[in-house]
């Protein structure tokens, strides 16, 4: 069985190399943002100088991005959860088509969506120059993630029986939605929310065309910094972005971890064990 051990080692080495490819630049840029002089290396000492420089110069972009992502989350929740509920109840051709349509802005290059918004609504100055213009783009882009995340959970439970049970006991639509549907798709809503906030914080493809000098988001500021400031400052800015986004991504990973294994047998027959 020596070949199997050899192959195992080979694959492990390969996987570790891929891991290094992904993680090393992240760590490098985090360190670079804290290093006094990147060319000299860590021996030049650690400093918060670059982080402070970014904070004083680009603070507004950070607050704007947080604001937009929270507003985006609120709207995607209001629009997305009821939509997902409707789609889950009516699994027909029409529902399939609507789901398809909602995913279109994700498949479309961000540039195309942004251009379309500009040629249609660019003439309304007040709207064009406000942060809500960017918000519209972000909602378009993230809505599908909320809908799909909630829909995935709703499709996995026996929604029909639960609702019929509640309805037979006299619960109206409103009562069923708030007391049966929402509690059951809690994990889907949570995962969708984390995804929406993460994507909205990092959205650049559309935002670069939608933004104005007064509505610069974090990624727009990042692109600015990469183009015109020294490597250390760009790194410090990236560090701040990572500190904001990585906790969200870790949360997403934690949520998706307990997946039922297909070959354990009785999982599929026992509705209590399904997520």
């Amino acid at each position: 069985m020596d070949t199997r051990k050899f192959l195992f080692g080979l694959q492990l080495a390969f996987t570790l190399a891929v891991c290094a490819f992904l993680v090393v630049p992240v760590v490098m840029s985090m360190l670079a943002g804290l290093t006094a002089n990147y060319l000299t290396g860590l021996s030049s000492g650690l400093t918060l100088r670059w982080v402070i420089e970014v904070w004083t110069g680009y603070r507004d972009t950070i607050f704007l991005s947080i604001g937009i992502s929270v507003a985006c989350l609120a709207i995607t929740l209001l629009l997305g959860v009821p939509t997902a509920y409707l789609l889950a109840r009516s699994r027909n051709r029409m529902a399939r088509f609507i789901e398809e349509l909602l995913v279109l802005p994700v498949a479309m290059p961000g540039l195309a969506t942004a251009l379309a918004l500009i040629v249609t609504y660019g003439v309304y100055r007040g709207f064009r120059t406000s942060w809500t213009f960017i918000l519209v783009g972000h909602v378009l882009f993230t809505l599908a993630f909320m809908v799909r995340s909630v829909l995935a959970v709703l499709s996995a439970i026996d929604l029909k029986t639960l609702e019929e049970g509640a309805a037979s006991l006299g619960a109206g639509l409103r009562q069923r939605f708030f007391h049966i549907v929402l509690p059951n798709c809690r994990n889907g809503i949570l995962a969708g929310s984390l995804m929406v906030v993460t994507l909205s914080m990092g959205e650049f493809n559309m935002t670069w065309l939608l933004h104005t000098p007064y509505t610069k988001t974090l990624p727009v500021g990042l692109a600015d910094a990469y183009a015109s400031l020294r490597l250390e400052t760009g790194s410090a800015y990236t560090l701040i972005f990572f500190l904001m986004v990585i906790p969200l991504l870790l949360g997403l990973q934690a949520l998706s971890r307990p997946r039922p294994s297909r070959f354990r047998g009785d999982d599929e027959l026992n509705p209590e064990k399904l997520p």
Partner: protein
Amino acid sequence: MIVLFLPTAVFFAAFFILPMCRLFLIGGQGAAGWAAYAAILTDGNYFNALVATFGVAVATTAATLVISGVAGVFLQRHKFPGNAALVAMLTLPLAFPGVVIGFMVIMLAGRQGLIGAVTEALTGDRLVFAYSLAGLFMGYVYFSIPRTILTVMAATEKLDPRLEEAARSLGASPWRVVFDVIVPGLKPAFISAGAICFATAVGAFGTAFTLATRINVLPMVIYTEFTMSANISMAAALSFVLGAVTWLVLALARTAAGSTVAAAG
């Protein structure tokens, strides 16, 4: 009941369907008229950009599928201490924006990058390729690996390990097991994940923007038409075509793989 869907319908119609129709109409109202929609094939500059874009996208898709296929199947089939940590690290960049990915490429292959430093120490020559199509390729592979590994792992989980055992007990070599059992079993996952790689590589803009404005791929061309030349109708026509191609690739992949596919990024 249908009232629940009304807000989404109104929002979507007003901010996506209507603007997309406007974009299509404006694309035909420039100096070139409706011929603007053919310009992507007839105009040498645009055509070259199209070829470069597709070239990078095909290379990205192939490289990502091989890398994520090997790593994903390995991590799903062999549970060892540290496995979960590796998976966590490999999927962490899942939602990094294109600009940040561009910066990661600069960190690795840029003027002050790691690859440059290592090659200089080894050979005396500094290898710097971040600001070219090669750098863009590297960025898109970086971007696509986390998503693809997740898809491959999920598909491998559903692949019955007894099939591989059976092949092995019948005397198949490891390579035969890979190409006759695992690859065919994962084909739908490969098709849908590959389509997403391709679509994101075709439409992404942030990475190219961070690396260099001179990289001649379609999104950069559209951006230049819009801002530098103020040629809005040509930008509209090109981006509409780009969107249509992306959608078509995803739709074809869906029929081929028989499952729903969503791109991101």
